[in-house]
């Protein structure tokens, strides 16, 4: 009986493995889109969106949210302090809706400095944006999602609604 030579067999296994993963790719993407559209707690909107977009809680893992909420008086260079009851309420909601490591591209690993914009997936999805584009006055910062994602305030980051300002 003829057997398939070992190197070829390895390659076949790899190809079959890759094919098996393909159908999974789409649901993961769909979960991410859905996760971004979690209805926002009105208090989260009120407090956090006073300074920046109300970032969808699914864009960071629970550990990152926990550190951020524990250090609001030094929040990326500004004092974002809140009363203890509000910190607790927002913190619990963020923990409940943080990224689910197994179901989203966000994963379990906290990005450097707990910055959404330094996450591997964020850098990957924005790799075509040049430094000159980021620096445009209407954009200014990678944290300014709504500059290009016209429906970001509704948690909608769909490519169809991207408009990059000149």
């Amino acid at each position, binding site marked *: 009986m003829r057997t398939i030579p070992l190197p070829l067999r390895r390659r076949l296994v790899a190809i079959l493995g890759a094919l098996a993963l393909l159908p999974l790719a789409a649901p993961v993407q769909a979960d991410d889109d859905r996760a971004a559209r979690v209805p926002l707690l009105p208090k989260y909107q009120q407090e956090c969106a006073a*300074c*920046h*977009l109300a970032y969808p809680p699914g864009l960071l893992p629970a550990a990152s949210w926990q550190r951020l909420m524990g250090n609001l*008086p030094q929040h*990326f*260079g*500004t*004092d*974002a*302090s*809140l009363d203890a009851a509000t910190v607790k309420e927002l913190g619990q909601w963020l923990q409940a809706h943080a990224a689910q490591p197994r179901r989203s591209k966000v994963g379990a690993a906290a990005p450097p400095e707990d910055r959404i914009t330094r996450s591997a997936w964020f850098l990957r999805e924005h790799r075509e944006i040049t430094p000159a584009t980021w620096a445009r006055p209407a*954009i*200014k*910062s990678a*944290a*300014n999602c709504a*500059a290009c994602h016209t429906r970001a305030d509704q948690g909608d980051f769909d490519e169809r609604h991207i408009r990059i300002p000149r």
Partner: protein
Amino acid sequence: MARPQILSAWLGAAGLTVAALAAAPAAAATTPGELLSGYRVAAGNAAAAPERGQRLFTATHGREWSCASCHGSAPTQAGRHASTGKPIGALAPAFNPERFTDPAKVEKWFRRNCNDVMGRECTPAEKADVMAWLMSLKP
């Protein structure tokens, strides 16, 4: 024919309750003038000086940002957050009637922003000066 009357009475009562609930938060509201007098009293009844408030607002105080970095040096118009770029509504109350109507909100932002700009909280006298200047800006 008593039933429609009962129903409308019930609806009327429900409507009143909703109206009362909706009005409740307004009880805690204040006016810029009341807030300013509160700060003046806390500052030992010192007269507020709008020009001193303007200087405090537009100058830096040993740190990167001034108040004007985000609010603009003419806070009669919208500003932009210096790091996130998020639009900030006009601060002068004559141009934005929501401003200085919620004491807790006012205190929260004075606390945070004075800390960012001066590295400490502002004194009641400083708050009174800044408010006096903002209130002097008219269309």
